[in-house]
């Protein structure tokens, strides 16, 4: 160990104060003084009168209250959302006298004598604003959390354009108007369509705009309730104290003074027994109080006695020969945080390295020999590619609201991707009976992999609710979300590929290091097992632990960095061999899912007619690149779907939709379209419209539903829908035969056919008694590749994608612009086509962010977060994406119920690689390191 530094937080490095002091009291203030002889009488509270959505409100506010909090918490309008807290994301947007403004940085006092319009007030006389209808009809939303802000802004823009006459604004005009809004799901392509169409008057008609997404109405009106919107009588607010040091030993943590503060109700220690802090931001304790301001003041009173230690920040520091161990004890190494979606397999440790994990190699010795051999007589490409740490940063932060009913019954509202699993985990952790735990997650503002496990937000809310005997809400702020909410680890991957003279792939080696912070279990090289699978390969994945926040699985874990390296290496190899990179891939590729995509790609003129490398010589150079991707097929075989028919409903569709035919499952809709997939699948079976089917998800009391992870939702749920529909049809046939004396009755798509004709399903439902059936997921024909482990089965398929990106490189200012993107996907039958397109577009948008902008940065010595908001952590905006074309090839997967595999992850694996190859095609510079910032581009172009 290197020398330790001792001192209290106030003293910083080397200081030795005599007594513990209040944590955070070091926070500086510019001026603290009382005015002398003021002419005006200062007041502690301010009375404001404001007109919100046509209603006057007289409110007493604190001078530092924000407009957003006042509207949400005092007036109770929850449509506008807290997103970033510094005006960067626009989720909080309201109209102030008709002009959209950011309300998270607007003092509440500014609302005085002003007219405020929130998303709830956009509809006039019961009719939605045309832009709300446009967002619904064009599916310009996914999780829906950013939607109220977008809609309020877009309504003002559309009204302004319409005032000048009906015309379709350009994409650039739309992008300029919506520049202050961020959508993490990447719904931008549809938002362009919606706003442009609304300006032409296309959505003026009140009737006729049917939404492809069944919960779209709730999202465009602000009616959708997310966990952060949940209020409960007597609810307390929790705030956590985050360690400012990346490595320290806390000797004493004393919150007695904090507890004595009026309004404070309880505290819970979150720091482990040993008192070791291993990353900056780690939660030390949480406090519940009557409001947020009181909880924050209480945190200032916590006393800490701490020994600050040298931190290993980043992979290079952790790999240095003299580096101390992040986990010096054997016991510590047994249970580090898990960065993967699966169970951790035992691995060897070497210093701060864990691994290499080589299980997915195939004839590794042969691969190495083949590469050596190819050096004299074949073609070899070798290189090292690196990627940055990417954060999930869903716009709804991690959040939980917990309420106990007596000592044994618990309700938790949780922003989660795994309602069923969380209920089980909570019951187990707190020793409760399964039926006494209820997890609710009606709407989830994005997850991307970061909300799939039981995490601190649930622990804080549940523990504090118990201690305080009152409901407690805990939500991360944006800084904590970027710090702790989850990240995709940075990687360094060294790849070698070799072909023989004929151009056949003869060997692959891949050696990947992952910068997982304190977590372990990341895999990248493994992806090389599922693409071009014929050749031998040596695949190694090694975790490097350091004093950084733990990585978590993020959408397509391991995929984007792996394909960034591999698909550029393949491109390089094709270039060396003077061969068309698409033809080369096609020759190596036995995957039936991708075969038709090669033919599709050849129909794209921009690809077909792309010309030679570095053809442009001017300032702006265009290029086009291709990359292929592959992903696993997962299913959760335990998935169930309950279908209920309730008696006493009329025959008309509206009544049926209200409660006549209701599907339920304890899954959740995080913007992936679970509700819509179920509604469409069930409706199709009975010749109904999706809006005729009521769908209930987001409640653990329903039958077991799949988590949203591993692209499993649709492939898990469609089978049980079929099964439930079959059972329901049988029940209805039996009922109708009995009731109406039908003969030779049997179910068909239109209804019950019998020897006297056909009785329409709608008519059957209108008279049916109460019926409940539960559908199950039939096993894939021929079984699984791996039977279920922890409830997840690996199917015998690998899905396929082919992506093309066109870029423009500004060689003067170093900016890369993605001009246009195409993505072809072989995932089988599409269950909800419009939503599938939205999801694919969103995956490409996130991939563009990964390629060009997103990058979490920590202080290189102390390890605390620098990119603590959405100003500094840069996700793509609407102006950054260019048109995106999505092509589905729906063949294959005939042995899977539903004839499909997952879509959510494969869509985001290859954008960066395709962009890298396009940059090479444009400039002949081969990018190695992500993100492709202007400084890197200029350096690369200089050579």
């Amino acid at each position, binding site marked *: 160990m290197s020398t330790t530094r001792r001192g209290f937080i106030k003293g910083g490095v080397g200081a030795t104060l005599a007594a513990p002091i209040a944590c955070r009291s070091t926070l500086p203030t510019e001026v603290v003084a009382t005015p002398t002889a003021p002419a005006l009488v200062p007041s502690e509270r301010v009375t404001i009168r404001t007109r919100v959505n046509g209603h006057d409100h007289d409110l007493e506010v604190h001078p530092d209250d924000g407009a957003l909090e006042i509207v949400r918490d005092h007036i109770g309008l929850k449509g506008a959302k807290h997103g970033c807290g*510094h005006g960067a994301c626009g989720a909080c947007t309201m109209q102030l006298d008709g002009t*959209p403004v950011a309300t998270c940085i607007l*003092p509440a006092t500014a609302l005085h004598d002003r007219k405020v319009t929130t998303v709830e007030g956009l509809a006039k006389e019961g009719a939605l604003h045309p832009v709300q209808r446009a967002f619904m009809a064009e599916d310009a939303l996914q999780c829906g959390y950013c939607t109220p802000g977008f809609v309020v802004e877009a309504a003002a823009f559309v009204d302004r354009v319409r005032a000048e006459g009906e015309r379709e604004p350009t994409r650039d005009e739309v*992008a300029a108007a919506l520049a202050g809004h961020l959508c993490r799901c990447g719904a931008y392509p549809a938002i362009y369509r919606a706003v442009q169409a609304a300006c032409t008057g296309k959505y003026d008609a009140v009737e006729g705009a049917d939404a492809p997404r069944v919960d779209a109405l709730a999202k465009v009106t602000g009616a959708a309730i997310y966990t952060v919107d949940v209020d409960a009588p007597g609810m307390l607010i929790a705030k956590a104290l985050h360690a400012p040091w990346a490595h320290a030993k806390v000797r004493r943590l004393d919150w007695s003074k904090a507890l004595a503060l009026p309004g404070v109700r309880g505290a819970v220690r979150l720091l482990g027994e040993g008192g070791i802090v291993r990353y900056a931001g780690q939660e030390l304790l949480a406090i519940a109080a009557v409001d947020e301001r009181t909880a924050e003041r209480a945190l200032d009173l916590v006393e800490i006695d701490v020994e600050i230690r040298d931190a290993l920040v980043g992979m290079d520091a952790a790999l240095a020969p003299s580096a101390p161990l992040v986990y010096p004890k054997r016991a510590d190494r047994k249970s580090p945080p898990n960065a993967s979606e699966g169970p951790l397999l035992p691995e060897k440790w070497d210093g701060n390295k864990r691994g290499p994990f080589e299980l997915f190699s195939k004839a590794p010795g042969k691969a190495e020999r083949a590469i050596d051999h190819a050096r004299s007589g074949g073609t070899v490409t070798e290189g090292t590619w690196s990627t940055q740490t990417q954060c999930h940063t869903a716009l709804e932060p991690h959040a939980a609201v917990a309420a106990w009913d007596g000592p044994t019954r618990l309700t938790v509202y949780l922003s989660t991707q795994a309602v069923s699993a969380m209920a089980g985990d909570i019951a187990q952790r707190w020793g409760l009976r399964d039926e006494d735990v209820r997890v609710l997650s009606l709407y989830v503002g994005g997850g991307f992999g970061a909300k799939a496990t039981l995490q601190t937000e649930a622990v804080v809310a549940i523990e504090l609710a118990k201690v305080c005997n009152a409901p407690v809400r805990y939500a991360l702020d944006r800084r904590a979300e970027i710090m702790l909410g989850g990240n995709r680890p940075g990687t360094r991957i060294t790849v070698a590929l070799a072909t023989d003279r004929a151009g056949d792939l003869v060997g692959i080696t891949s050696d990947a290091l992952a910068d997982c912070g304190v977590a372990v279990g990341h895999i990248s090289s493994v992806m090389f097992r599922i693409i071009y699978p014929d050749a031998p390969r040596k695949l190694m994945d090694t975790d490097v632990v350091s004093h950084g926040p733990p990585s978590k699985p993020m959408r397509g874990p391991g995929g984007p960095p792996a394909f960034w390296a591999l698909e550029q290496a393949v491109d390089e190899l094709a270039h060396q061999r003077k061969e068309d990179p698409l033809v080369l891939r096609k020759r190596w590729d036995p995957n039936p899912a991708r075969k038709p995509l090669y033919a599709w790609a050849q129909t794209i003129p921009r690809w077909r007619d792309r010309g030679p490398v570095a053809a442009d010589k001017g300032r702006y150079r265009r290029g086009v690149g291709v990359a292929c991707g592959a992903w696993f097929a997962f299913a959760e075989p335990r998935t169930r779907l309950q279908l209920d028919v309730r008696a006493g409903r009329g025959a008309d569709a509206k009544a049926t939709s209200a409660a006549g035919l209701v599907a339920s499952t304890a899954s959740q809709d995080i913007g992936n379209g679970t509700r819509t997939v179920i509604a469409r699948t069930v409706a199709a079976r009975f010749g109904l419209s999706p809006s005729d089917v009521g769908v209930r998800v987001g409640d653990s009391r329903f039958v077991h539903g799949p988590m949203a992870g591993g692209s499993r939702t649709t492939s898990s749920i469609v089978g049980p829908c079929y099964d439930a529909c079959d059972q329901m049809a049988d029940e209805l046939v039996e009922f109708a035969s009995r009731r109406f004396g039908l003969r030779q009755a049997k179910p068909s798509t239109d209804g019950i056919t019998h020897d006297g004709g056909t009785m329409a399903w709608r008519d059957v439902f209108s008279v049916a008694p109460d019926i409940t059936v539960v559908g199950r997921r039939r096993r894939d024909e021929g079984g699984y590749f791996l039977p279920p482990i922890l409830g997840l089965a690996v199917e015998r398929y690998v899905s396929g994608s082919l992506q093309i990106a066109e870029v423009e490189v500004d060689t*003067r200012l170093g900016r890369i612009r993605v001009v246009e993107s195409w993505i072809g996907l072989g995932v089988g039958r599409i269950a909800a086509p419009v939503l599938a397109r939205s999801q694919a577009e969103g995956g490409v948008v996130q991939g563009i962010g990964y390629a060009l902008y997103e990058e979490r940065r920590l202080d290189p*010595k102390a390890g605390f*977060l620098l990119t603590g908001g959405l100003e500094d952590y*840069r996700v793509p*905006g609407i102006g950054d994406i260019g048109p995106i074309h999505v092509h589905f090839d729906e063949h294959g997967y005939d042995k899977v119920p539903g004839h499909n595999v997952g879509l959510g992850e494969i869509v985001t694996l290859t954008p960066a690689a395709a962009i890298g190859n396009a940059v090479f095609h444009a400039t002949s510079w081969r990018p190695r390191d992500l993100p492709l910032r202007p400084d890197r581009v200029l350096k690369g172009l200089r050579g």
Partner: protein
Amino acid sequence: MIVFPTSLQQAAGELPGGAVVRAGGTDVHERRRLKLLSGNLVDLRDVADARDIAARGGGEIGVGALVRIAALASDPGIVAGYPALAEAAGGLATPQIRAIATVAGNLLQRNRCWYYRSPEAHCLKKGGARCFAREGDHLYHACFDLGPCVAVHPSTLGMALSAYDARVDVVGGAGRTVAALLGDGTDARHDHQLENSAVVTHIVLPAPRAGERSAYVRTISRARAEWPLVEAVARLGVEKDAIVWASVAVGGVAPVPLRLGAVEAKLVGTAARPEALAEAAALAKDGAKPLPMTGYKVDLLERTVLEVLEKALERAPVGGV
């Protein structure tokens, strides 16, 4: 505690004693939440004056301190006479921020350094003893190392207004040029030099020069809504196909907006053709002293200046007076 004066004169009277002024509040509100700023508030919500843009004698224009940035960007007189200023105002922050933030607030906002905004770093600007960025990650910081603090100045309007030799009127203190208001970049503690007891009332724009051509360039990685890596305003006077005077200001590169004297001097007498501008643009580097991670900004500065000069030459001349 808070007061709501009804005039800026009255507001200035409330300041002795350490109260802080809140106008649009976009920066003040966030900094108070981050506990970077405390003290009583003097909220300008009810102030009636200083909310318009009006002509003054001698062709000058007075822009009220409380004019919203969006209003400045779209004001017909500003667009016609000061197009680069309008462009700069329309390119900063986001539409929802420009709609509430004021022009004087933009000048007087605090910097966006990620150490200044981090609770973990007690830096020079917060009264601490060291610049964390200098020793740490300063990828987006200064390449003109002018003082102990290496944060770049945040005010796009400050940069653009220096190119126009604008002044500010002040109550509770002396009027001064925008350049003097923002200082020379060596003050480790402050982002501006306005006394605690003073309030800016107007920004005064000298008359545009007849036939001047001007432009603004914001060099960023995304399309919009990003703090600039480098930004620049150029104003060029052109007679008989030659540049006869020039004013070039840049931001994002130093703790204060910079006027590039060497570039301006070199431009005088240069042919008014794009291909003749490179030599002058190369002088943008004069005096640059990059930090280990900001060398790229020196290069990007030269490129941005070349870009803004070219763009200015392409522009139609303004009417002038």
